[in-house]
């Protein structure tokens, strides 16, 4: 445990220097980026440190490995304990038996309750982490959706141009129709006026003619003398006689 702390403190001593610098009171250039190679950012460890037999850190075994191989640390442990116990440097008195009982209790408790508690805590951590991740993801999704909606709105706005053209055409058609309608109206009005003139002229001619005919007839009638009239009648009788069938 302390070895791991020692290792970690070496790693962390440097980033602390970097962390201390931004709190200086002089005017520093705050835009300098962090040197990631020499002062790497500290990563959060997700798994607890590797241990053997529950409490011995893996680093101690690695420390022994290069010199004494795999069985080295175990031999060292067994040898050390045997030495301490046999030479009575470590006296097995009442504390030892208490320690033994605690050890038995601890092993039992860890084996029995450990996984249960670990699972419960992991689930809680998952919930917390999940809620943060979910919030971030939902924000990203929301923003992406907003981008899509914006693009769609832009596309719709472009479509408005076609609508403008259609509307323009529509208006032009309407104008044309109105123009033609007015043209027809003008034509009909003018025709009406001309027809009127024609009619009045016709009527005038007709009346003149009738009047003239009447005048001529009246004059002819008036100029017929009685002698002419009698001669005409006589001629008519003679013609009739001539036409009548030769009977009788």
């Amino acid at each position, binding site marked *: 445990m302390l070895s791991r702390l020692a290792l970690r403190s070496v790693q962390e001593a440097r980033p602390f220097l970097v962390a201390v610098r931004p709190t200086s009171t002089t005017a520093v250039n705050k835009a300098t980026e962090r040197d990631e190679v020499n002062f790497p950012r500290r990563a*959060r460890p997700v798994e*607890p440190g590797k241990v053997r037999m529950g409490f011995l850190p893996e680093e101690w075994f690695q420390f022994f490995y290069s010199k004494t191989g795999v069985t080295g640390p175990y031999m060292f442990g067994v040898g050390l304990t045997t030495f301490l116990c046999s030479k009575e440097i470590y*006296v*097995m*008195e*009442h*504390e*030892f*038996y*208490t*320690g*033994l*009982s*605690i050890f*038995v*209790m601890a092993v039992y408790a860890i084996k029995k309750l450990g996984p249960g*508690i*670990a699972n419960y*805590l*992991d689930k*809680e*951590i998952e919930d*917390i*982490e999940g809620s*943060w991740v979910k919030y971030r993801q939902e924000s990203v999704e929301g923003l992406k959706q907003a981008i899509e909606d914006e693009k769609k709105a832009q596309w719709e706005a472009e479509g408005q141009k076609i609508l403008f053209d259609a509307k323009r055409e529509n208006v032009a058609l309407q104008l044309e129709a109105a123009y033609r309608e007015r043209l027809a109206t003008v034509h009909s009005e003018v025709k009406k006026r001309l027809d009127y003139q024609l009619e009045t002229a016709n009527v005038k001619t007709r009346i003149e003619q009738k009047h003239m005919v009447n005048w001529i007839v009246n004059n002819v009638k008036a100029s017929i003398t009685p002698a002419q009239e009698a001669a005409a009648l006589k001629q008519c009788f003679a013609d009739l006689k001539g036409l009548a069938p030769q009977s009788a």
Partner: protein
Amino acid sequence: MMTNLFSVFDPTSSVLMLPLNWMSTFLGMMFLPMLYWAMPSRWSLLWTLITSTLHKEFKTLLGSSHFGTTLMFVSLFSLIVFNNFLGLLPYVFTSTSHLTMTLALALPLWVAFMMFGWINHTQHMFAHLVPQGTPGALMPFMVLIETISNVIRPGTLAVRLAANMIAGHLLLTLLGSTGPSLSATLISMLIIGQILLLILEAAVAVIQSYVFAVLSTLYASEVT
């Protein structure tokens, strides 16, 4: 080697004339989780759950009067629980089994509450000396009894904690000291007995620290 039955409580295991065994008081600090990361780890989450539960408990006891007072009592609880619990481990000195330690925790708290209460809320403190619903004739005696119970409060707090710790350790020590002279089968019985005692002791450790913290909370809430 035990010179006498109580030598296990002897706080004079000194190196260079410095009583280093009292450093076990700060051993609990090694167990506090490092809350550097925003995302909790298993132990930091467990610790946060425990302390937040305690905070809720103490908040209801204290009422909504003073925001942040629960901090003192929760930290008191954690100090005492770590000391009690780690004292059960072999070769770790139980500092809370000494009256010097427990009185040093209880007495300043009580004196502070009393001084604050009597100076600032004198009427209120006098009113507390007579419980609600006492018949008129009994009132003088009630005042006397309440005063005495008030005065012995630091003593009870301190002695309760120390005595519980001493009792448990004494039993374990007694059982354990017969260990070197036992045969193999009897040792297994000894281990079983000690396991049962240790379960009791672990419970007592946690409970006593909780009781200490809750009672000091109650005394604090009485004063306001």
